[in-house]
């Protein structure tokens, strides 16, 4: 299945975005031959209680063939309560976290505790290394992404698949050793805007087999990620679009 691992429905709180509902997302995917998505709720990312966004999303995508990544803020007390409510209420396939928005590093005991819970569920964790264009959102000041703290965490022997979403190409270069050598670490394509030939750059860095497709739609233009397939070999495109994490 051709999958978009970084897609959302719901409103971006600071800027009006178009086609923010599930139909809009599906239409965009259909137009480009994407068959499914690991979708999350923008509401859940920003709400004080993410479950309120996730229960809504679960009802919306039920029976659609799309998968659900629930949003978690590990800094909230009793993260296990969020997971338990989700377990009891709907099906989901992954966890999505937003450290730059919620404001923690990867050495935070709350994050580590959450990650152990995720491992207990054997569901992948999608980590957003940024969330929107931090240069432009002057109403939301994001905590800078801490690559070194993530590296230390990844060295500690995690077993779960981890997808680094919204990671910039330069940061990928900094993480190249992990992306090459850690079988469970992947990156998505949503932030390849700083290079004309980003997939070539990634091949040169040696981790082309760790790239999954992620658009960060509807916050970013869907095509901004998808256009990196132009001029690429069909095998490369298929490899990325059909890479299976869940």
């Amino acid at each position, binding site marked *: 299945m051709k999958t978009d691992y970084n897609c959302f429905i719901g409103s971006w709180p600071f800027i009006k975005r178009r086609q923010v509902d599930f139909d809009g997302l599906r239409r965009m995917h259909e137009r480009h031959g994407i068959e499914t998505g690991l979708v999350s709720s923008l509401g859940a990312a920003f709400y004080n209680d993410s479950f309120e966004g996730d229960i809504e999303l679960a009802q919306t995508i039920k029976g659609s063939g799309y998968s659900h990544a629930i949003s978690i803020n590990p800094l909230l007390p009793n993260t296990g309560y969020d997971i338990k409510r989700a377990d009891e209420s709907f099906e989901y396939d992954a966890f999505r976290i937003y450290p730059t928005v919620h404001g923690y590093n990867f050495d935070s005991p709350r994050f580590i505790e959450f990650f152990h819970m995720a491992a207990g569920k054997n569901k992948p964790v999608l980590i957003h290394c940024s969330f929107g264009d931090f240069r*432009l959102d002057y109403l939301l000041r994001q905590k800078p992404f801490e690559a070194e703290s993530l590296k230390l965490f990844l060295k500690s022997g995690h077993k779960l698949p981890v997808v680094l979403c919204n990671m910039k190409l330069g940061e990928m270069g900094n993480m190249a050793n992990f992306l090459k050598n850690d079988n469970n670490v992947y990156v998505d394509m949503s932030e*390849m805007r700083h290079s004309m030939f980003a997939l070539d750059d990634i091949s040169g860095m040696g981790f082309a087999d760790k790239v999954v497709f992620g658009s960060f739609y509807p916050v970013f233009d869907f095509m901004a990620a998808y256009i990196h397939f132009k001029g690429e070999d069909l095998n490369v495109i298929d490899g990325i679009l059909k890479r299976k994490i869940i």
Partner: protein
Amino acid sequence: MIIDVHAHLWANQYEDDKNIILKSCELFGIERIYISSLSSYYPDHEEIDYCNNLTLGFMKEHPKLVYGYVYVDPTHKNRIEVLEKGLDKGMSGVKLWVAAKCDDYRVDDIAEKCIEWNVPVLLHAFYKAIGHLEYESTAENVRCLALRYPKLKIIMAHLGGNVYHGIRCIADIGNVYTDFSGTMIGTGDINYTLGAVGEDRILFGTDMASGGRQCIAQVEEAELTQDQKDKIYYKNALRIFGGKR
């Protein structure tokens, strides 16, 4: 046809940049590209000369494809000499970057020369929540300059950085055009701009060689008629810079 009005060679990697630009133009059907060469934020006279010579060299190598902006630092006393030398050698416009705000009094004679030569000035403008440089212009500075010089053809780069800050500053000023070069990829940015300034004042630019595919993606994803697309891709550029398809 596509005309890219905003691209660069970076002095420390210009051979790589040329290769990327040439390969990209072929891949995406860009038939004309307007280049300026840049290096440090606060260049000395030698650096300005070096950068402009890089641009002239690239123009000479690919005369049908590559056109040039003469890069001028408004804080330099020889700025007009540099400007006229570049235009004399066939450059098509003037580029100002981050050494001085674009409404600085030292830009006045540059603006007057651009009007005299009937060439546009490409102004870097970026409103940043973090990392803003001391003399980096925003769309508010562009607005001040444009109101002072209503006959000056101004291209405000990057939609002013943040489209919601930038476009409101130029919406009611007819001599300011804007390009959406750079790495902003918010859905709907082009349509928001279109709603505010209309299709005759939007220009296609990439900011190559540092990225740029997303700029084509934005046009392709925006809700545009073919006529609007044509204007953005090349017709507006032909009108401002002159030349035929």
